[in-house]
């Protein structure tokens, strides 16, 4: 496949991500910050996000499995997750986190478990999408093209 086609594919893909609500304007901002001084900024941030989120999700799973759930701890993790996801523009994850926090306030265990499932689902979705996007970008770079903004 030639570079132009790849580039168009990338643009389409990105557009669809925005369109479907996986990403929001914040991600655009991140992309703006990437320049020749900081060529891998977006990838670095996103990788950090993945690490962070996985850690938080594991902690959440453990916390919600307890006999008596420590809601404050759960809330703290969800808050962090919300913060990270909003920082990179992972919109759908962020929104589930908002609902998650409400359930925490109400101390509703069922609701929390449901939200946890949802978050995990959304997270894995967005992770897959972003990884595909990075793969495309890598392909373009190896093919000698430049990444369109």
């Amino acid at each position: 496949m030639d570079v132009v086609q790849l580039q168009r594919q990338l643009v389409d893909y990105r557009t669809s991500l925005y369109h479907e609500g996986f990403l929001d304007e914040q991600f655009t901002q991140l992309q703006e910050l990437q320049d020749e001084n900081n060529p891998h900024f977006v990838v670095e941030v996103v990788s950090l996000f993945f690490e962070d989120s996985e850690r938080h999700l594991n902690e959440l799973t453990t916390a919600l499995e307890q006999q008596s759930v420590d809601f404050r701890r759960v809330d703290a993790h969800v808050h962090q997750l919300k913060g990270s996801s909003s920082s990179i523009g992972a919109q759908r994850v962020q929104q589930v986190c908002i609902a998650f926090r409400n359930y925490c306030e109400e101390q509703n265990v069922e609701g929390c478990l449901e939200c946890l499932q949802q978050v995990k689902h959304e997270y894995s979705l967005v992770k897959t999408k972003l990884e595909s996007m990075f793969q495309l970008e890598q392909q373009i770079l190896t093919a000698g093209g430049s990444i369109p903004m």
Partner: protein
Amino acid sequence: MECNCFEPQWPADELLMKYQYISDFFIALAYFSIPLELIYFVKKSALFPYRWVLVQFGAFIVLCGATHLINLWTFTMHSRGVEVVMTTAKVLTAVVSCATALMLVHIIPDLLSVKIRELFLKNKAAELDREMGLIRTQEETGRHVRMLTHEIRSTLDRHTILKTTLVELGRTLSLQECALWMPTCTGLELQLSYTLRQQNPVGYTVPIHLPVINKVFSSSHAVKISPNCPVARLRPAGKYIPGEVVAVRVPLLHLSNFQINDWPERYALMVLMLPSDSARQWHIHELELVEVVADQVAVALSHAAILEESMRARDLLMEQNVALDLARREAETAIRARNDFLAVMNHEMRTPMHAIIALSSLLQETELTPEQRLMVETILKSSNLLTTLINDVLDLSRLEDGSLQLDLETFNLYALFREVLNLIKPIASVKKLHVSLNLAPDLPEYAVGDEKRLMQTILNIVGNAVKFSKEGSISITAFVAKSESLRDSQAPEFFPVPSDNHFYLRVQVKDSGSGISPQDIPKLFTKFAQTQSTATRNSGGSGLGLAICKRFVNLMEGHIWIESEGLGKGSTAIFIVKLGIADRLNKSKLPFMSKVSTNHGLTAFPGLKVLVMDENGVSRMVTKGLLVHLGCDVTMVSSSDECLRVVSQEHKVVLMDVCVPGIDGYDIAIRIREKFTKRRERPLLVALTGNTDKVAKENCMRVGMDGVILKPVSLDKMRSILSDLLEHRLLFEAI
């Protein structure tokens, strides 16, 4: 031989002689003892003025006594010597007694007059005694009045006052009966309300216009009335002679009658009866007492009435307070609910807007024909405006709370009008309307004000002009308003005063459209109210536009109104707003109107040392990326303790994330301030928060933060924030 003896005159009879002998003896005794007694008593009383008279008298008696004593010797044969002594004694006695008799003629009148004077003095003393008694009685009565007054005035209960009056009066004056007649509601009769002796007076009435009653009412004194008149006939008629009766009026003062020279309309009648079958009469002082008491009663009654009134008013006020409190709380709840609703809706509306803006921006980066590019730019600008409008729907609720503040900055006035023209021209040309813009030559190129909202206002008005015109032309004129043209008949209370730093911009938008009927003009600026003319019914719109414009114009200390000569005759919308005059220094810091032409590589802040505190790794990294992109030298810390350890004079700005629960970002702010005492050395403290709460902003201000930024922060936002911050050392973004 002849003896020189003397013979008694008659022959001595033994018995008779004996008696004479004894009698003479006793007489002599008496005669001698009387002076002795006299002397004794004279000695006792020192004041006896007639001493020498007594002496004379004494001598007389002594001599008489002597005579009789000597007589004792003459009953038998006695010598000449005895006879001589007897003769001497008698002669002396004669002399003294005549002298005494003569003297008595002089002194007896004196003695008599003494007696008379004595009698006179005694009478006088008796009279004085009587008068003393009277005065004491009056004194007693006066005391009773004072006590009575005190009793009456010490209670505020009407019945107690009246009962006490009657009781005390009855006691003081020893009355047989005491009664009070009160006027009925109709005012035509007097009803017996209280009596002293009868426990429950039968409520019987007399008409008020009896001559005797009129007589009493027309005088302020107590008046004696006949015991047979209807008001005094309180006891069943009997065989006794009724005592004297006196009646006095008691003015019943109303609250409104508290002028001194005003005669109150209603009186009550107090009737007092002295005990029957007694000779007592009404004395002046008793009548005076009654009058005084009647006045006091009137005052006490009015006090009681005032108290009743004020208690009632206070109860009413308390009820109203409770109701008001409830209403206020309900209103607050309603406002909170509405704000919550608006916030949620706001969010829901923002999301698709972001998608539109993001995608349009992306579209702009692709290959486009110039025509397409123009279209995309218009889409972008419109969506930006729509975003602003969405912000303003939230603002409207805040406008009404009064918490909206204008974002004042320097902007290009000419460019603003050109932008409006560009935005409106496509729509106008579709409707074949001609739009013209006329800017006065003295209009300054740059001004200080809220550019976004001014643009929104102008656009709204021009948009309305286009919307409601089917054909013809629209003209927009803008000029600097001078004093004469500032005052307008429509707004008599609007007094604009231009000063050195400000000028008043007047904008007139005239259209040749459907016009507005005069009765609809006042409704134009009310929220959601629409005019009912058929031509406009299909034009859509939520009716918020003009209401928001009016509020913005008011915030800009201006005035807005619409003139129209009637339906079909077009209309002119005019507004005047106050703008600041931009000076040379401000012009260099103009932010750009359109966001498309930013230079990504602009390092506005080379080497600026910034400290970023954020617990969340990802967001820390993003913030750092932002700042590095702007050329800052960034240090990152992840906890408040680390922050306090690392912060130093070299750091110019500290960005701290404060929306983390459990970590008190505010506490750090306070501690950093404590660490740097001099304001110059202290880094600027800026809080990053995702919390749009007013409370959060207030907390930040309270702990001394220099600025608050709402997350998420875009690159341009961070750039403008840093520049504002460094220039003014203060920033508070409207959250």
